[in-house]
């Protein structure tokens, strides 16, 4: 029984971190219909900010989290204004943004490599490799703090979306862009703010990733498929769905890793991606796609 509980805890611990990593990706898709393939590269950028904050000045990555979020959000504003806003008028908007974000991912990777070298890094606050033991069962404190921070940020985002006026506008734009515009919503401003929040969330997630996993500029390629599986399972654009998917898949992967083998635990995410596209393409909370 202790082994079962332990595996469950480890799955939930991993899910907490993945939830925030996927949330920004989901928000950007929901509002702007952009599958941001560069999202994990911005997570790596956030991780570098947290790493250097810790290494140079001893600032805890959890303290660096809002700094990384704000800096990345500002980059998001600039990217939107100078790159994505122009593409919004393109007849092949969706196709163009996929290519654009793919290129952006490579540019960010190259820029990070140029600034920080390709050396792998990991931030090492004391709690990152500690654990709370309750009998035979342990809770890794690094993942615990990361998960709690992740849930707090996502909870705050959910409250903002649900109760603030601007949150209404974001949700309206997510549900029906044209109708929102007809009702007076400045969808361009909403899109820019959503993109900035999405990239800011990537920065925040990066601060958490910096002490949970080691990273280097090219690491983002390993993350994109995992994050896509969360967003697709949750329902493209549904942040709540992404969070639930993160916990579900992480727990399943943990049990698969424990009872079947580690090789298969990673495969769980990709298998889920295939199955959900095959059986329920709208995901858990997404809208059913309309037949043309």
């Amino acid at each position, binding site marked *: 029984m202790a082994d079962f509980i332990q595996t469950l805890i480890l799955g939930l611990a991993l899910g907490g971190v993945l939830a925030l990593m996927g949330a920004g990706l989901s928000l950007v898709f929901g509002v702007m219909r952009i599958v941001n393939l560069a999202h994990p590269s911005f997570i790596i950028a956030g991780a570098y900010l947290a790493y250097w904050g810790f290494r140079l000045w001893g600032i805890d990555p959890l303290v660096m989290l809002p700094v990384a979020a704000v800096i990345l959000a500002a980059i998001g504003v600039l990217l939107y204004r100078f790159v994505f806003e122009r593409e919004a008028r393109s007849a092949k908007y969706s196709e163009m943004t996929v290519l654009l974000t793919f290129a952006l991912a490579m540019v960010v990777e*190259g820029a990070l490599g140029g600034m920080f070298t390709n*050396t792998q890094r990991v931030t090492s606050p004391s709690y990152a490799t500690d654990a709370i033991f309750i009998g035979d069962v342990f809770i890794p404190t*690094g993942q615990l703090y990361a998960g709690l921070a992740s849930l707090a940020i996502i909870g705050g985002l959910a409250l903002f979306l649900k109760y603030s006026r601007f949150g209404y506008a974001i949700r309206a734009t997510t549900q029906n862009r044209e109708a929102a515009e007809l009702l007076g919503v400045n969808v361009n401003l909403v899109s820019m703010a959503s993109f900035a929040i999405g990239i800011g969330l990537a920065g925040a997630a990066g601060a958490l990733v910096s002490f949970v996993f080691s990273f*280097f500029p*090219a690491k983002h390629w390993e993350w994109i498929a995992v994050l896509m599986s969360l967003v697709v399972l949750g329902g493209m654009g549904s942040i709540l769905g992404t969070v639930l998917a993160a916990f579900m898949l992480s727990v399943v992967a943990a049990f698969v*890793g424990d009872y079947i083998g580690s090789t298969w635990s*990673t495969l769980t995410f990709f298998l889920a991606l295939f199955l959900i596209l095959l059986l329920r393409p709208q995901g858990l909370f997404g809208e059913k796609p309309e037949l043309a």
Partner: protein
Amino acid sequence: MKHLTALCGATALLLAGTAYAQDAAPLKIGASLPLTGNFSIAGAKHRAGYELCIDMINERGGILGRNVELVVSDNRSDPATAINQYERFINVDGVEAVYGTFSSRLSFPVANILAKNNMVHPLPAGGALRIYTQGHKNIFYFQPNAAEYVGASLAGVIRDLVPEGERPKTAAVISADDFFANGVWAGLLGEKVMDPADGSEVADLAPGYLADSGIEVVFSERWPEEGFNDWLNLANQVKRANPDLIIGLTASAEEAVQLTRALKTVRATPKMVYFSQGTQAEFLEGTGASAEGVLVHTSWHKDAPFEAVLGGQPFSNLDFVAAYQERFGEVPDEDAAIPFAVCQGIEQAILGAGSTDNAAMGEWLSARTREEPVRTILGRFNWDDRGLPADKPFLMTQWNDGELQFVYPTDEFVGVDKLSHPKNGF
């Protein structure tokens, strides 16, 4: 006066040689490296090692009076791209020699292309035995031995350095599902090595180094080559098996960091830990005090007093460390040192053959003996028929007091440190 005349004459000759080197067409050497993607960390260091070596050769007047030009392409850690780039080097860029790439995964397909084009293939990384059993003529490995035989050094440490009553009796073997790591696994567990092309048996390694050492394997598991993040779960399974010895066949320093941190978090308490990667400074930075006592095999050590040559002049391993530190501001690790040795080997092959005729270079390299070897900062090299070094042991190192200390074999050179045992957890 005589001395002054001689000095002036030597200087004039050197200047003349340098001027000639600058005038003649550059000698192009191609290297396809993983500068981005999963192997980018090692790839960047390989480029640093190659570049430093070539710059120093050029400072000494080049090779055969010609400046050397390194043509590097980023293969993005992708085998197909690496193949295309070597084809391009040979057929479009007109390189006269090549340096190998990083990792067995890339080196295996590249070996076929270079053999087809009759090029000498010096490998800085590519330890899987299968690479050397394809019948390629001019393939030369610049590390001590194939991955399948790495376990001999671990077995030697246990046999020769650990008192009989304290030797590990049980082991957990966990490994990346990687070309190189799988080779080490096969040797440790005594598996058969098969040729992927036709399914034929390359070698039967039974009973394996662990069985030979009287060690029972109580847990074994592989993790996927890419995208694995469930380190805590894996570490917890290792802890539950309660082994005396943890063998982590990591494919990169990054994996070694992740695994060590996870083992620390779950509070695993093995007596001995061995990793196949982890000599790099990044490993120490990522793991801190947890690195204490971890054994790692290596092909190179900064304190090894190997005497070599570069640009026709004596050049020791200690000279390399000093030059690297001056250029890059940090102590090199084996990922930079091994390519440097490859560059030295090819320089000596061109000088030995008197030209860049790859057939002649290959013949010269194949004719090396223990008495007349290629001399590099990794020590002496001569090769068997397969292209694997003859009688060259891996160096076993151990992290102690924040230093990577050389502990085995004890008769390779002076300056061997005492093995610290047992490890007492992380």
